[in-house]
């Protein structure tokens, strides 16, 4: 009975962490001489106040969820992928190129090919750091960060040169953007709002990723490598191969997020020179959403909606009480810090449960689940 209560408490840890972050946010709002209740009311209203605003929340949640699904895979495999931004960009570039090149195709076919291109682009951009980690021992955190910077410059170069909108190329302004996709290539809308098919695709994929991780050999091996690479090696698993696979899949989902963003929302690519100009930092915020969903693909769905809501609501909050939307970035950071910090209580209770169990069932000291040591092998 008690263990049931305590595992319920575990499930609510992220919620408690969020409430703590909001509380800190409230203190900050007081310092900014803004009534926190008023600010949070505006936030809520902006995110859920009407059918339209809720649809906007879901539109924002879609790329977050797709990135988060990839993060679930890679973090479970003990691979820290910080390259979501770059992978989104490369996926989007490739998908856009498909749509602008294959203009003769029927809509459904072009969209399918474009989504595949996005998936592929992200897979390549994630696969490179994967290979570097698995076979050259280059820390993936560093290589993915570098790959982000490279992707941004590649995008800027392509959008200013080879892929520039022909009509912009003739103008003096030369806005760095591609031509607009044909109308028949847009992802269909699901309601008389901006909500598009991408949201549905993301939810279906969440289920597929769940199946992948817990119902297939490949998924089992990815998780085994993440839990204990040495034991996996002894068990005959080719560890490097699954490190590459984890990063490659992780990148692929981010790449798809980029493609969906172009085909569902913007209908073209445009750059302001930075990565967040295109991604809206979804490559980072997706990590936050995945962690919040405890690296579980299904739980990542509500988590993404929550963070989508924060982003959409932040705009309204900015308009109503003049608080810069950067406050939401701060809150996201605090949520991450609080969630990882609160893990200690979960582990403590886990240990107490193990200690309370009958002696013959208690595993030897070294075998105790020890989440922190997971990333010790750099």
């Amino acid at each position, binding site marked *: 009975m008690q263990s049931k209560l305590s595992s319920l408490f575990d499930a609510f840890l992220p919620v408690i962490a969020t409430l703590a972050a909001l509380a800190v946010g409230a203190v900050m709002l007081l310092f900014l001489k803004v009534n926190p209740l008023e600010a949070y009311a505006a936030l809520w209203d902006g995110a859920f106040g009407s059918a339209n605003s809720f649809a906007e929340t879901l539109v924002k949640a879609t790329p977050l969820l797709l990135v988060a699904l990839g993060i679930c895979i890679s973090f479970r495999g003990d691979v820290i992928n910080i390259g979501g931004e770059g992978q989104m960009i490369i996926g989007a570039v490739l998908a856009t190129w498909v749509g602008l090149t294959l203009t003769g195709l029927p809509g459904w076919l072009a969209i399918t090919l474009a989504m595949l291109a996005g998936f592929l682009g992200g897979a390549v951009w994630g696969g490179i750091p994967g290979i570097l980690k698995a076979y050259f021992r*280059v820390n993936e*955190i*560093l*290589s993915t960060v*570098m790959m982000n910077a*490279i992707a941004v410059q590649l995008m800027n170069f392509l959008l200013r040169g080879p892929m520039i909108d022909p009509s912009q190329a003739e103008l003096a302004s030369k806005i760095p953007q591609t031509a607009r996709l044909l109308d028949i290539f847009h992802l269909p809308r699901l309601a008389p709002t901006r909500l598009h098919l991408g949201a549905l695709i993301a939810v279906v994929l969440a289920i597929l990723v769940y199946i992948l991780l817990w119902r297939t050999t490949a998924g089992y091996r990815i998780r085994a490598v993440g839990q204990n690479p040495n034991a996996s090696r002894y068990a005959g698993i080719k560890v490097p191969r699954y490190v590459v696979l984890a990063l490659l899949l992780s990148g692929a989902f981010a790449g798809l997020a980029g493609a969906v963003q172009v085909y569902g929302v913007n209908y073209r690519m445009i750059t302001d020179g930075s990565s967040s100009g295109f991604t809206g930092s979804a490559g980072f915020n997706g990590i936050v959403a995945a962690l919040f969903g405890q690296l579980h693909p299904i739980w990542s769905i509500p988590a993404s909606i929550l963070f989508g809501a924060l982003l959409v609501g932040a705009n309204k909050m900015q308009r109503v009480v003049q608080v810069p939307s950067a406050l939401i970035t*701060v809150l996201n950071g*605090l949520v991450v*810090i609080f969630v990882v910090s609160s893990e200690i209580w979960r582990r403590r209770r886990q240990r107490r449960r193990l200690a309370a169990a009958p002696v013959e069932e208690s595993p030897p000291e070294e075998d105790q689940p020890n989440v922190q040591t997971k990333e010790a092998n750099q």
Partner: protein
Amino acid sequence: MITDLLSTTVLIGILASGVRLATPYLYAAIGETFSQKSGVLNLGVEGQMLIGCFAAFYVALTTGNLWLGLLVAILVGALMGLAMAFVTVNLHAQQGISGIGFYLFGLGMSELLFQRLMGTVETVRGFPKIEIPVLIGIPFIGEILFNQNILVYGAYLLVPLAWFILNKTTLGLKISSVGENPDAADSLGVSVARVRYFTITLGGVLSSVAGASLSIALLNVFQQNMTSGLGFIAVALVYFGAWRPFGVLAGALLFSMVNSLQLWVQVLNIPIPSDIAVMMPYVLTILVLVATVSRVRAPSALTRPFEREE
């Protein structure tokens, strides 16, 4: 055009700005070296830099006192470092992830404060260049090395200082033992927690100073997200330098020299697309990581929280 690039004045320009541009990398990466040597990966460097960058700039702008700006950056950096240390040492949080949290926190906080307190981009008059007497007279080298501002000199003095502390003092020995084998260190009476608190806080201070060096000594402005990935590169430089201060120095110089060359290529209108040129330092960093990292071993306890066996 190629001859333009090779003329002496241009060469001096490239090298001098390369020396200057290495400054923020040096502060941040030396700080990170200390924390990694003690077994702690601090990925929040970028966030700490942004906060220091803003704090120093804002104080310098409103009070007109650069030293006060630097001091405030140091204090704010220490606070950020202490917070990171608490989360890492006491709460055993997974370091790669809590670092992302601190990065987002710093990114958002610096932007929030910037928009709320300033709103528009302004400039300050940063630390002036100081010519070192006598040494400035050395042909060629004098112009490159000895006509810089105080924070640049500070960064280069930090390197041998860090080397000395890490290799020749008891403190340095404690730091490496905590990073290599915390259990053994603990049983010999070294306080793992205290050593890590020290290194993480020092890392926070130096990251913050790195940010300050951008906003009140090198570029003398503050913009949103103005470090744009610099802090992450600093972390990469620690691996690159194989956890040795002089290795970090070599990496920082290589990176900033390529960067400076790339800027001059643009200034001189050499027909390489600027976006591609900007990309080069990052490509180079990956390549060098491939070439070097596989040969060196990281501190054994890196990213492992310490818990005394009961």
